[in-house]
């Protein structure tokens, strides 16, 4: 048996005066503990930030949905009030809004049909009611690389999704401005041009003109786009005089009316009536009668007919026996302008290639041929054009 080693002394020594190595271990342990506590704090605060943000977003969404639901109820009720008060346009808008947010709302479809009936517009079936988003499913673009963005942009372009293509092209341009510069420019120009034409055709005139202005930065527009552009600009010029200068409004709208686009004839009728009133007030019943006649030819109005008759009688008196036909709402129209409106068949875009001159699927192109006051007519006669698509080298 060996005598046991007295450990107490060593232990005591260690306890009172630790060896340098042991001291290092202790402070390292302290550092680890402090580090751990700090890490814990970071984790807790980080989690609190993230979960707090997520909970806030969720709460906000719940609030939004509650407000949306409240808004649906409110708009529905207001729509009923509008319908009862024969404010069909407002009622239509409200019910369409309700159906956009809540398509499965049969009462709204029914009431929308009543509003449309009041407006003499075709009614909708429950299945064809307003949908909140376009029905055509759009593939999710692949944004994993610049090349894939470019390919996605081409695909969007090919299917005529001009806005989608433009968004992707912008994304590409922000990432790498020089990538496929020529092709990107070509697609941008074409998509802007086509979107602009779509907007013009749907009555969004200034919006369409803006797109065409952007497209024109890439090069001259084709003749069809130019013709639409000048027609739209001319319409907006005429519109700026509406209610302020009936003479000019009437003159200008008379020419736009020949194309039958953008509700110009209605505005022409109102302007002609306004101009007629002005002429009647300035003791020119003959000219006033002509304006009333022109207005009645387009927009029969029982309230205006007696005024027109009175102007005609005054004119006859003034001209001392020179007979002038009495205007009637249903009488033979006396056109101030000889017009030719020749709708042309719509053309479809050439798919699959990125061409700058693809014609969008559209409505008939107005062909305006005013025979009077040519200086006031739109500078170009819009003529349909079937451009040759230029495939891009990709």
């Amino acid at each position, binding site marked *: 048996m060996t005598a046991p080693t007295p450990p107490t002394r060593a232990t*005591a020594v260690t*306890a*009172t005066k630790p060896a340098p190595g042991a001291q290092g271990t202790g402070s390292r342990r302290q550092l680890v503990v402090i580090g751990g*506590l700090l890490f*814990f*704090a970071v984790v807790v*605060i980080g989690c*609190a*930030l993230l979960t*707090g*943000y997520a*909970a*806030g977003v969720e*709460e*906000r969404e719940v*609030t*939004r949905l509650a407000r949306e639901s409240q*808004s649906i109820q*409110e*708009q529905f009720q*207001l729509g009923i*009030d509008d319908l009862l008060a*024969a*404010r069909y*346009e*407002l009622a*239509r*808008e*409200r019910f*369409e809004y309700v159906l956009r947010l809540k398509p499965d709302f049969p009462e709204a479809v029914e009431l929308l049909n009543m509003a449309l009936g009041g407006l003499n517009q075709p009614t909708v079936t429950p299945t064809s009611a307003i949908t909140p988003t376009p029905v055509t499913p759009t593939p999710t673009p692949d944004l994993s690389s610049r090349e894939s963005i470019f390919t996605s942009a081409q695909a969007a372009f090919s299917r005529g999704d001009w806005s989608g293509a*433009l*968004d992707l092209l*912008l*994304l590409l*341009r*922000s990432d790498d401005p*020089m990538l496929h510069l020529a092709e990107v*420019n070509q697609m*941008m120009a074409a998509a*802007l041009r086509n979107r602009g034409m779509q907007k013009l055709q749907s009555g*969004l*005139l*200034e*919006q369409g003109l*803006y797109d065409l*202005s*952007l497209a024109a*930065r*890439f*090069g001259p527009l084709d003749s069809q786009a130019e013709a639409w552009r000048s027609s739209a*600009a001319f319409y*907006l*010029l005429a*519109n*700026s*005089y*509406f*209610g*302020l*200068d009936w003479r000019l409004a009437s003159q200008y709208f008379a020419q736009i009316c020949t194309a039958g686009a953008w509700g110009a004839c209605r505005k022409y009728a109102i302007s002609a009536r306004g101009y007629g009133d002005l002429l009647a007030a300035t003791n020119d019943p003959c000219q006033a009668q002509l304006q009333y006649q022109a207005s009645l030819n387009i927009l029969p109005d029982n309230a205006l007919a007696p005024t027109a008759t009175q102007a005609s009688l005054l004119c006859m008196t003034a001209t001392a026996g020179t007979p002038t036909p009495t205007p009637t709402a249903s009488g033979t129209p006396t056109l101030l302008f000889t017009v030719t409106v020749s709708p042309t068949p719509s053309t479809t875009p050439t798919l699959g290639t990125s061409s700058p001159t693809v014609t969008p699927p559209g409505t008939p192109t107005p062909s305006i041929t005013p025979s009077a006051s040519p200086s006031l007519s739109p500078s170009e006669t819009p003529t349909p054009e079937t451009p040759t698509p230029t495939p891009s080298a990709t």
Partner: protein
Amino acid sequence: METKPRGPRRAQPRLDSVLNIALASGWVMVVLFAGLVVYLLVRDFTAAWTGTGLSPFQPNAPQSTLPSGTQGAVGPLPTAIPLDQWKPPQPWSGKGRVTVLLMGLDYRDWERRTGPARSDTMMLVTLDPITNQAGMLSIPRDLYVEIPGFQFNRINAAYAFGEAYRLPGGGPGLAVQTVENLIGVPIQFYAVIDFSAFERMIDEIGGIDVLVEQRIKISPIGRLSFWLEAKPYHLDGAEALAYARVRKGAGDDFGRARRQQQVALAILDRIVGFDMIPTLFSKAPALYQELASGIRTNMTFEEMISLAWLALQTSKDQIRMGVIAPPGMVGFHTLPDGASVLRPVPDQIRQLRDQIFTETSAFSPQPPAAQADGSSP
């Protein structure tokens, strides 16, 4: 005998470790408490921003109540000119141009309680994140335009009609639609700013510096009127608001529009030039309260932050400014009832629009870098 001194020596580490454990536990408790506070703050902060701080004016007012001075027939059948289908503004992709319609409301309508307020100020602010160019376009309130669904009227009536008829997009929705039809550019966001919130926000950033170009008398709310000479001034919130709003003299509405743009630039200068970002962070809760209660907008808080960041990245010399003003862009007309209105001259306005929006767009045959170097207004 040898173990005698070990008693207190053993007790010391035990005491230390107990103390350490207590400290660690305390730390854990503090951290957990801080975490809870942070969680609640962030949650409430995020959830509170609904983007509709300002309540619509008189939400329970009868539908037909309209502010006095709105011209034209807004009778029961606003069907002569079709009301466009209201659509929510197109979302901002984050890459393309973003445009905000800033509106201030007419205080007089508010004070008179005659019905929903008309917009007193309309300004389009646009930023293009690709070209890093920005622009401001002011629209005079007397411009006589077609308001969808409500025939022709002054453009400032659009907001009131949207509120009065409680249209789905409300006053801001109809105002945005009307301005889009006039200018042609897509507008993603609107912000209706309460005057008092504007004042307080300027005070929070310590006021602004402006160079008064022409002697002008201002009347800050709640203070005596006084003259500003043609020289540089440091204005506090109330003075800045009065300077931006004063209409009499110095070019009336058009001069006022220019001063508003000047104030907007001065705010940007103040924030960027004085390195206010740390101060803004420290005052974030107060500013947030001002924004949340004084601005009615369709922007989310995140979108506001990213837009503010984008604005801070934009150099001042890359900002184009314009006012729809005479000569050329408007014509002066008088309605049969004697009211004065402005006729927009579309092709001239289009030229200004193109200078601010089209020429600075990323839709360009030149890459953005070359465009920024080479183009000038």
